[in-house]
């Protein structure tokens, strides 16, 4: 009887050891998926004329040992909406060149509090460095950021349509939540 008990206990501990080898590291470092929204407000050279819009995006990050890293964000061009189809077409064709907007960062951030994401932004196929001051909330459950994007710094010409020209600095707000 003791023999059987010892063998069962040994097998249990062996199984636990096996679990710890395979599962615990996975629990410590895993890929987290996010979905979220980008809000932009664009000023123009015409007095009191501003446009605002939204885009829907998907993001991924690696959460390991109480930190968040390897952030990758993607906004598909068809999700950019401004409330007027002509403007959406111009935005998609003239700024995005029908390509997704991508941001990738290798910065490592704590799961709570402010975080400087240093990375690369790809717009119209052109990749330029970009720093985003973000804020991580609720242990990595959501990520928020508010910053300005300079079109000229991204190598883009400010779009213009029949005399109304967009200003160079575009204020952006980003909010992502973890997908379940």
């Amino acid at each position: 009887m003791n023999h059987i008990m010892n063998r069962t206990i040994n097998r249990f501990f062996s199984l636990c050891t096996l679990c710890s080898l395979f599962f615990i590291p996975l629990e410590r470092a895993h890929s987290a998926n996010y979905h979220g929204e980008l809000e932009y407000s664009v000023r123009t050279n015409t007095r009191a004329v501003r446009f605002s819009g939204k885009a829907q995006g998907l993001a991924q990050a690696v959460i390991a040992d109480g930190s968040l890293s390897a952030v990758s964000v993607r906004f598909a061009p068809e999700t950019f909406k401004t409330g007027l189809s002509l403007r959406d077409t111009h935005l998609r064709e003239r700024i995005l060149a029908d390509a997704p907007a991508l941001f990738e960062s290798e910065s490592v951030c704590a799961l709570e509090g402010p975080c400087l994401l240093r990375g690369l932004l790809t717009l119209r196929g052109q990749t330029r460095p970009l720093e985003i001051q973000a804020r991580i909330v609720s242990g990595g459950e959501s990520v928020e950021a508010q910053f300005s994007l300079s079109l000229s710094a991204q190598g883009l010409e400010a779009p213009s349509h029949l005399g109304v020209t967009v200003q160079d600095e575009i204020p952006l707000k980003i909010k992502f939540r973890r997908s379940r």
Partner: protein
Amino acid sequence: MKARHFFLASILFAFFFLAPSARAHEGMIHKGYVSCLACHTSSIGGGHLTQYGRGIARGSSLRGGEYHQGPIAQGLSLNGTLSHQVQGRLAHLNSEHEKRTFPMQADYLLAVQVSSAAHLRTTLARAPKNSLKKDKDGQLTEARGAELWFVRELMASVDFGQWWRVELGRDRLSLGLRVEDHTMLIQAANRHGVMDFPTQVRVIREGENSRHFFTAFAPAGSELDHNRERGGAVKSEWIVTNEGPHLVVGLNLLHGQTEKIKRSLVGVHTKLAIGHFAFLGQLDLTRRNLRGSDQQFDQEVGLVRLELHALEWLVPYISHEWLSVDEDFTRKAKVRAGGLRFRLSESVSVMADYKQMEGQSRGRKRKDDFFISQLVLNLF
């Protein structure tokens, strides 16, 4: 017969492909336009369209696509110095009392860019003869000049820096919501008739989050005698939010006096766009005093209107207007309306409205339903 059909088809074709539309619309807040200046040369909206406005008119029509100025229009513009526009409206009215089709409006609009900061604009209008009314003595009860070509707008406009604009000339008053229908109670009951284009000096400040219109006005000479009013008006609008939902709130003040009546008006208005919907509202309270007596009467007039912008080129709406005047001039009115605005191209749009009016004046009740459809054509 065939030649006539060909001629009519050619005219329609020309309107369809050449002309921009000039429907001023507060519902444009749904597309993020809280100011009129992007699409119109006038700060108070309506009338002459800018190149950008023509692009938006085309882009938000059923035809869609990009607007390009044609070679003839480019030639006539003398390198962008002049901008011409011709607009016309053909209306069909169907009510219990009458059924008729008539030309409602024909205007020639001209804007002259004098310098980068100064421009002149004018609208020369032709009133249809069948709108003229005569009293039993055969005298015109319409305003003077209504039977002729008349000047609807003649304004000189100068920009000072980024925010300020000063305008001098003759135009409609800037007060409350800019609605295209002068029979709406917020227009008619506030004495903004088709011929009310007072002489005025207007100072405008268009800021980032607010716009203010300060106006001093006097008769232009074409008003009916009892409408010859002088005074001052202020209209202010604040952009509460223009990201996601769009919300603008406004305040209107006016003090004016004619030979017999003094009036003071306090009003509020709002424009709100959420999702596919746009909501417009206005409420004006007016106190009138008979000059030389202590007699006074108060008036309340309001409008609420809901528009559905699920499609850019087809906008249905419902609205409710009310009017209440107390004391000796006891009068009440309610107007329930529904309709749609259909923009076929930048040059052709159709408006269809069904209105149900209920009124009571000095104890007598009145009820009237009518349907009016309008074909709006613009030629550039």
